């Protein structure tokens, strides 16, 4: 799979991961990122995914993926067993995002966390002028059927990082499939990718 065909946040993460490293992809979907890392960077990639059809697809393409839930199944991975733990567009669907990130940082030396920024100006406008929960390109579901149960903004996430004393090794912001400026990211970024360590 090429970078062009991959979701922009995944393509960005794929470029940052070290050659030959060990990666746990939490919420790996059908394994697109894992396959790209394996084929392009000789990464030893393992996955955790909640949806059985996705797991079957990933195993069918030769990847090592375990069906499980980020909220409950990360506890079974030993400390420091991976170079990177990756949580892409899954944070906002977990019951306790803070505890999940804590687990990522226990399992991996570093953790990539990507999420849609709920404070993007389109969403703000929607709430301010429409008085309705935003339904946008990045957040296409209505409030009652969305899987996103913990909406989060760039500044919310930075506050959590500060509160827990984690350090930020890198941060990237996306608008569409293009990287965008750090300035006013909380207003202008549709997507954020953080690289953290404990």
């Amino acid at each position, binding site marked *: 799979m090429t970078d062009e065909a991959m979701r922009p946040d995944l393509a960005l993460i794929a470029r940052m991961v070290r050659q030959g490293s060990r990666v746990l992809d939490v919420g790996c979907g059908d394994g697109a990122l894992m396959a790209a890392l394996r084929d392009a960077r000789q990464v030893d990639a393992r996955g955790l995914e909640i949806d059985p059809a996705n797991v079957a697809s990933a195993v069918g393409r030769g990847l*090592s993926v375990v069906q499980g839930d980020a909220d409950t199944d990360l506890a079974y*991975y*030993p400390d420091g067993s991976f170079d990177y733990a990756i949580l892409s567009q899954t944070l906002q669907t977990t019951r306790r995002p803070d505890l999940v990130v804590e687990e990522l940082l226990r399992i991996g030396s570093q953790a990539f966390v990507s999420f849609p920024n709920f404070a993007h100006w389109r969403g703000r406008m929607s709430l301010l002028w429409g008085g309705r929960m935003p339904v946008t390109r990045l957040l296409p579901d209505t409030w009652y059927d969305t899987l996103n149960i913990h909406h989060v903004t760039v500044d919310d996430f930075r506050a959590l990082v500060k509160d827990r004393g984690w350090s930020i090794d890198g941060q990237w912001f996306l608008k569409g499939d293009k990287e965008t400026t750090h300035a006013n990211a909380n207003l202008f970024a549709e997507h954020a990718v953080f690289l953290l360590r404990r």
Partner: protein
Amino acid sequence: MASNPAPDDSRFGLGRQVRLTGPLRLDCGVAFGPVDIAYETYGALNADRSNVILICHALTGDQYLASENPMTKKPGWWWRMVGQGKPVDPDRHFIVCANILGGCMGSSGPASIDPAMGAPWGMRFPVITIADMVRAQALLLDHLGVDRIRAVIGGSMGGMQALTWPTLFPDRVESAIVIASTARHSAQNIAFHEVGRQAIMADPRWRGGDYYADGDVPSSGLAVARMAAHITYLSEAGLTEKFGRRLQGRDAKTFGFDADFQVESYLRHQGLSFVERFDANSYLYITRAMDYYDLAEDHGGSLAGAFARTRARFCVVSFDTDWLYPTTESRVIVHALNAGGAEASFVELSSPFGHDAFLLEAPELNRVVDGFLRAGER
């Protein structure tokens, strides 16, 4: 290493049987030998002998994996998984399937002749374990000139063997596929088996297991054992869909104890056809081996410890309607593999068929097995 075996090597092919000197050092302490093993092979060993797939059968399975069963005249029990163009493919793989130690289809078991006595072993046959079955398979592979196996695959009790293989022979196994199985027999599993065994032993024709001389076998007890077990292989939803409360060949209840309901008739048929092909004493021994199975117990209580020495890749599959070996049992295996950093995949597939799902139409299972095997052939 010897050259590639010629196609006419009598060790290879369908309907093979061999007597190996052994002795096998059994878990019960007995040195058992000679060991008879009935087996089949499909496909050809490649030049570097790297294409070997060992398939382990379940409690009432046999070596007729993908060829017509000579007793039932039915296709081999896993024809959906094994064959040309299937995930396990004789065009690509050298496939071995052997009747387990303790079985009754040609391998040493209670119905075979004890050479010292010149008579069937009966209940003098040593009590065997899942690990003993695996050791017997290893003996067979030695005989076939096979050192390493690319994958060992099994469902149910076959899954227990597949899971045990890398723990006993970490250097011989590259990967294991464990389907609808468990790392230990639960109290409920043991309870169901005990019902079956008591049914056999309560049959007056069982006679302490010495029924071979006159051929008057405890078929009533064995049929009841099979009926009880068969229920555990299905799901409530599956039974309801297949039979519901429908009556069998009649318009009204008879107010008697004939098989009024279709489900009764079906179970009776299952029991009767089973006794024609299975030995009651074998049923006792094999269910006992399953009950004794607790892989963690053999490794100081730590399942992760059992996998400490293996570098094999694992693929664990469960089915959502399987209440005999439910998904929670597979998760125990997966968590132990994760804890040890093993390369492991796990998926719970959806099927209406309960435990038997792995033997039936399951396209997702085939896709998973195919992808997992091909990943090891890159």
